[in-house]
């Protein structure tokens, strides 16, 4: 299980569920700048898209190794942010809507600093408004991955990464648990869909415990919301053990949840969550 290699014939799939509710308009410090959570999240998701494209780069061409979907949820419903449904990574390479210039300071080992402006392509633009229809996002994701798995029965199963800073407003916790369970029931011959939840820290609520890929035999969280996200998150297969243990410590198997996560750590967590992109043949 979870052994399938990513090839052009048996490509992989990644789905990002992106909370774009009103609370994402709050200001945060990200990469040394004051910006909004929505800005920071869109930069991280765009960085992930760029990484998937980069990892697919071969001799003079981009290999069609992944299908990717980004589902944003805000207001009353979820919507697909890369056009409808999954897009081939080869299509995404040509779909950037704009370019963003981001100041970056590099600190070198001798202590010197180099200020640069880096140019980054943008597919997902920042947005923050309204409520949190996470239930609708989970339903949409389930429809998409179920159809995808039928078309790719021998592939590594889809990875769904849900990034949120709050609780669903369109479904009760029990309904969210049911929707997530249905999502995780989809799968290929290589295993079920992997659902990972990343909760962005609310700095007004620092008393809530943080979690970062907890071991399965760790105590279940007591906070109601973290407990829900914990319970709906997948247990990660062996493929993830080394990279999580290296970055985080702990004993596998690990649970695919990061709760109360500083936004500065998001790109690293997305890189872990999308680990199969390192396993392209």
């Amino acid at each position, binding site marked *: 299980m979870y052994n399938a290699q990513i090839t*052009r014939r048996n490509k992989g799939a990644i789905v990002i569920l992106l909370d774009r509710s009103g609370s994402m308009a709050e200001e945060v410090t990200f990469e040394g700048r004051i910006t909004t959570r929505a800005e920071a999240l869109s930069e991280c998701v765009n960085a992930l898209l760029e990484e998937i494209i980069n*990892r697919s780069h071969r*001799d003079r061409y981009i290999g069609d190794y992944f299908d990717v979907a980004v589902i944003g949820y805000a207001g009353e419903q979820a919507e697909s942010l890369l056009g409808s449904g999954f897009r081939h990574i080869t299509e995404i390479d040509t779909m950037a809507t704009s370019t963003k210039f981001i100041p970056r300071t590099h600190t*070198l*080992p001798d202590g010197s600093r180099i200020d640069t402006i*880096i140019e980054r392509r943008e597919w997902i633009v920042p947005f923050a408004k309204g409520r949190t229809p996470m239930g609708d996002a989970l339903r949409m994701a389930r429809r998409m991955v179920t159809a995808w798995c039928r078309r790719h029965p021998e592939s590594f199963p889809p990875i769904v990464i849900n990034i949120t800073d709050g609780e669903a407003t369109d479904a009760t916790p029990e309904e969210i648990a049911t929707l997530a369970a249905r999502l995780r029931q989809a799968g290929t011959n290589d295993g079920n869909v992997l659902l990972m939840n990343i909760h962005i820290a609310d700095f007004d609520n620092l008393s809530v415990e943080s979690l970062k890929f907890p071991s399965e035999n760790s105590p279940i969280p007591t906070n109601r919301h973290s407990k829900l996200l914990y319970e709906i998150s997948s247990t990660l297969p062996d493929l993830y053990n080394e990279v999580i243990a290296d970055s985080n410590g702990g004993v596998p198997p690990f649970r695919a949840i990061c709760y109360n996560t500083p936004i500065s750590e998001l790109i*690293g967590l997305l890189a872990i969550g999308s680990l199969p992109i390192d396993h392209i043949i």
Partner: protein
Amino acid sequence: MRKILINEIFESLSCGEKAFRSLRNFTLLCDERGVPRFMAGRNSVVVQMHKQGVLYGLKCYTSQLGCGEQIGAFVKTLPSNLIIRPQILSEELWVVDRFLSVAIYPWVDGHSAEWLIRKAIHDHDTALLATLEEGFIDLVVNILEQEWRHGDIKAENIVVRPDGEMVLVDCDSLYSPALPKRANLGTPLYIHPLRKDAYDSHIDDYAIALIVLSLEALRRDVSLFSGESMVALPSEGNSERIRELFEGNNALLELLDALLSDDYKIPNLKDILKCITHR
């Protein structure tokens, strides 16, 4: 420590010499957006650079290179007509929060065999497939006469020069009795399913058989291609069709049986290859 992104490597490269411990006086080749021209591998990214008027490949490892210094010393003893010999600089490039190893090697003009195979398939160019196969067999018969093995033979790691000569790139998975045993060598698609952590002079056998059989099969029926150039892979489900295509050719049938067997070793591989090319 978290995983390094390829863009983060590019950002470090944009800092120039200051991001390197020792590498000096070079210029990266970039596209119109200022992004380095590159190819990605499983644990590395290769960019091009000019240094003192010479074009080089700069391979930046995204994870730790096991036995880098021993490989770097050993590879200097290898024949340069068979394999490109990089200079390995351990812990050389600063990226985010750590030093990464790099390998520098003279850039080889030409195309990867993978690119050429795909071009041949696209163009239905069976003559090109035949030329590629012949060149590949020449190369690997030479290697099978050495005491070392490449460890990661695949179409992407073979550069075909403009004159048709082939040379191997990527020394990370080298086998030699002189080198320490390492695990996880090679690319899974090109590794016999039951080879596991075997580390011996037969680690290239399966990959060689796979490439030869795939090229032979494609020459006869290019419609076998469905995305993956290695059409002889058991997982591609073409074995019976390929057996039909090879009917009457004992050498190819013997090689196909060897590919599909439970043994990763093909002891008489060199003899079979010589029969295939009638040498």
